[in-house]
């Protein structure tokens, strides 16, 4: 049985390969070198080592054409596999970290290397990267079936939560920070609608477009990286 470390080892062989949001990846193509999308990369890794589809539109579909998506990773994480605490996942090689997509937006999927770092298909500017698990928002973590995971014997690496992250929630987030983000978007040629201080779908879409243009992860959420790129400060 393949191990979680095998997933990490395979993923690391693809660092720096190109990323295209939504790029389809044939999961059965062993020699694929990109372009990758985050969920496609994760599903490809699972298929290559364990031979089944995970996080795809149909998990019994054609492996050459199956479509992977962070929302389907969240679905499968709830139904198949073992949900684990973030602290456990970031100390377990081969665990997957998932940020669920907001309606109309994309989420994200990253692989934990077990030492506080990740391997993930990140953005058009950076491609496949070794990133970090902390200071980022994750909704859930999962150990996927068909792999032998070494239990996290020691929880050496603590998860550090990000600070304030603007995002789509219901009811929407409101405040002066939202308005400053909206005005910064307008200044840079993106249209979030009227700068009303309400973080609605138009604002999230404008943020995602800005992120894509700047080579950031285009998830429509405003954390510290996007804030810096926009030139917006807290307080």
């Amino acid at each position: 049985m393949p191990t979680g470390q095998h997933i990490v080892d395979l993923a690391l062989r693809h660092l720096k390969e190109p990323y295209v949001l939504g790029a389809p990846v044939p999961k059965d193509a062993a020699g694929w070198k990109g372009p990758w999308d985050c969920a496609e990369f994760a599903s490809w890794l699972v298929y290559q080592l364990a031979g089944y589809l995970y996080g795809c539109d149909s998990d019994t579909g054609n492996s050459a054409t199956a479509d992977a998506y962070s929302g389907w990773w969240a679905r499968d994480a709830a139904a198949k596999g073992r949900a684990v605490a973030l602290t456990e996942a970031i100390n377990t090689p081969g665990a997957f970290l998932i940020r669920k997509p907001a309606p109309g937006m994309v989420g994200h999927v990253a692989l934990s290397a077990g030492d506080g770092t990740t391997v993930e298909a990140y953005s058009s500017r950076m491609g496949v990267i070794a990133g970090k698990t902390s200071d980022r928002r994750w909704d859930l973590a999962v150990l996927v079936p068909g792999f032998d995971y070494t239990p996290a014997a020691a929880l050496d690496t603590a998860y550090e939560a990000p600070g304030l992250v603007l995002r789509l929630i219901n009811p929407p987030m409101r405040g002066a920070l939202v308005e400053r983000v909206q005005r910064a978007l307008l200044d840079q040629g993106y249209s979030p609608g009227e700068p009303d201080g309400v973080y609605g779908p138009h604002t999230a879409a404008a943020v995602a477009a800005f992120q894509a243009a700047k080579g950031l992860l285009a998830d429509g959420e405003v954390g510290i990286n996007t804030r810096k790129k926009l030139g917006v400060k807290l307080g």
Partner: protein
Amino acid sequence: MSEITNAVQTALKSALDAAKPTTPVAKSFVTSFLKGRAAAFVDIAEGLASGDIDEGTARYLLMQEGLLVSAEAEAVAGLSKVALQAAVDAFLKSLTDSMRALLKIAL
């Protein structure tokens, strides 16, 4: 806002008192686990104090962070072999009481 930073320090102390970690490793784990999550609480509180976010947003985010930390503590308690839930409960209670007083919001 130093009052909020002080509130986090007080909450951490409450957590350690509640968990009664018996070894330096366990004490270090409780501290790093909670410190790792404190930034979110501080940012939310400071965001409310400065008007960056409104009260409804702050209340929602604080509730979400509290739920996340509690769920996480329950999940890793077996692995960490420390009374993490008691620590988290004490941490959240102390922090919530402080923020209620400092920011004049209902939590």
